[in-house]
């Protein structure tokens, strides 16, 4: 994920939210002169690497739409399908705006161990055709910025599965904007940003391995989803009233697109089209395959029949679980991680949810949260320098060389990263929901609206007509 030569960045303490205030003035000034010519550094750019990174960026956007909107949209009742899809679609717009104004800068600007300088790349100033050697030396920095933006779009979209079918649209919009600013961007900086606390490649105090977003994307969204489900409460009628998926076919199409798109997510995180990209591609594939077998297999054993939605859920669980590990493990290890993913997530969704008695409508916590925690921890043991030589020989801040190969030592690092992510996500989500409730009156729609459905009451539309 990162260039190996690391220096702790200087720390910027100016409160970066002021950057947002400068948006419109920025529009005016940032126009032309400040962006360096895109062809300036063309010499250093490898078209093969850039082709792969652009294709990967496109694949990751495809994961959100149409991938996730299909997967989630199929699982809700027909009266809520448009509202559910809108939860993801609107993020393609909102997150891009944030990313342009201050998001990329907070995540990847030079700063302290917790966040980057929001002014460094304000309005994407200085993010042009020249590579940023700290991150991806063979592609335009703009390509790197685009690829990372797609991650910022899908992460809050994942959360929306937990609040489906009952959250007020206005409250949702406010929540995701705050959540991204307070949870996602700092976490992204800590794990992947230069000088970030957990950045193993760039001088982080706690070297946490997370190739493509176990902490940043899946644990953060999964844990926040759980808190959302607990704070919002159950859907009217849950669990007495049957709420079967209104269209499993949509969810299966979504599953296929998620699997395909995840190749961009994980293999694209190599940031070039070399052998590491291939290796991440392979790990991704085999984990998804294995998890489908173990989830459907458990159903076959315990319930007498493997369900199709179960196989699909296993696939997604396998993909979420391998995400942090995809650039560090062999194919057989990835397969084992996948087998574990299917089993653990199946139990989380069927037993844990029943035991804890919450209504995480589309099982974001059970699949993404539990899955990626499993993946992060297994990676602690399975990380393999033969797969990714960069971890054989990294440097701590004091210059001491250490290896991050799998073992108890690295397991503890991983545990620290996971624990921090859980704590930050849970606490921040809890607080932000109170803020949002204060600002919008209530988090949920009125009971009558909930029973009529979000499509009609929040958006004035119906999905299906003659």
């Amino acid at each position, binding site marked *: 994920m990162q260039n190996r030569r690391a220096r702790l960045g200087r720390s910027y303490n100016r409160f970066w939210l002021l950057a947002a205030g400068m948006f419109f003035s920025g529009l005016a000034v940032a126009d032309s002169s400040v962006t360096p010519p895109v062809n300036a550094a063309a010499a250093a750019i490898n078209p093969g690497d850039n082709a792969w990174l652009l294709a990967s960026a496109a694949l990751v956007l495809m994961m959100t739409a149409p991938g996730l909107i299909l997967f989630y949209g199929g699982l809700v009742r027909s009266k809520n399908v448009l509202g559910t899809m809108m939860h993801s679609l609107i993020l393609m717009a909102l997150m891009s705006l944030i990313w342009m104004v201050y998001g990329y800068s907070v995540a990847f600007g030079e700063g302290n161990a917790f966040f980057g300088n929001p002014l460094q790349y304000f309005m994407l100033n200085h993010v042009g055709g020249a590579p940023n050697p700290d991150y991806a030396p063979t592609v335009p920095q703009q390509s790197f910025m685009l690829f990372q933006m797609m991650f910022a779009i899908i992460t809050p979209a994942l959360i929306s599965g937990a609040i489906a079918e009952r959250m007020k649209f206005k409250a949702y919009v406010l929540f995701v904007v705050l959540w991204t600013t307070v949870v996602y961007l700092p976490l992204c900086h800590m794990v992947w940003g230069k000088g970030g606390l957990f950045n193993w490649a760039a001088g982080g105090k706690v070297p946490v391995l997370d190739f493509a977003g176990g902490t940043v994307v899946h644990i953060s969204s999964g844990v926040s989803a759980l808190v959302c489900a607990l704070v919002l409460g159950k859907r009217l009628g849950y*669990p007495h009233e*049957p709420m*079967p998926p209104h269209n499993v076919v949509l969810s299966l199409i979504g599953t296929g697109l998620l699997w395909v798109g995840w190749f961009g997510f994980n293999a694209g995180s190599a940031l070039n089209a070399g052998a590491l990209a291939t290796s991440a591609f392979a790990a991704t594939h085999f984990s998804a395959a294995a998890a489908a077998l173990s989830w459907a297999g458990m*159903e076959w054993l315990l319930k007498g029949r493997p*369900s199709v*939605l179960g196989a699909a*859920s296993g696939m997604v669980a396998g993909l979420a679980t391998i995400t942090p590990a995809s650039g560090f493990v062999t194919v057989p290890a990835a397969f084992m991680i996948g087998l574990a993913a299917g089993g653990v997530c199946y139990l989380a*969704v069927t037993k844990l949810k029943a035991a804890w008695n919450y209504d995480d409508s589309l099982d974001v916590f059970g699949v993404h949260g539990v899955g990626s925690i499993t993946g992060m921890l297994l990676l602690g043991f399975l990380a393999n320098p033969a797969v990714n030589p960069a971890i054989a020989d990294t440097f701590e801040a004091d210059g001491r060389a250490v290896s991050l190969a799998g073992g108890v030592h690295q397991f503890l690092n991983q545990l620290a990263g996971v624990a921090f992510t859980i704590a930050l996500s849970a606490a921040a989500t809890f607080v932000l929901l109170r803020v949002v409730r204060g600002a919008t009156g209530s988090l949920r729609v009125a009971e009558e609206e909930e029973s009529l459905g979000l499509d009609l009451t929040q958006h004035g539309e119906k999905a299906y007509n003659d």
Partner: protein
Amino acid sequence: MKKLEAIIKPFKLNEVKQALHDIGVLGMTVTEVKGCGRQKGHTEIYRGSEYTVDFLPKVKIEMALPDHLVEQVVETIEKAAVTGKIGDGKIFIWTIDDAIRLRTGEHGDQAV
């Protein structure tokens, strides 16, 4: 005039329609319905949530008939629709006051 309403298993619809055509009864109106009765439902599971589904897909055939045809139609439907297994369905019959063909304005037996 009588109204006759038959609830049958969906996959028997074509056979019943054909049998009725064969005795010269062409007009009927069909609705997809869900039925509940002695026939046992089934269980569906989605990610661990088990639902018992009591309502099974059935088809409702409605016909307005001159009185003299009722018996023959009932027999025809019985023959065509029965599988002998539970859930084969029912026929209900009642008397109607009038029938009107919209196109012509005809009333009564002429209209059906």
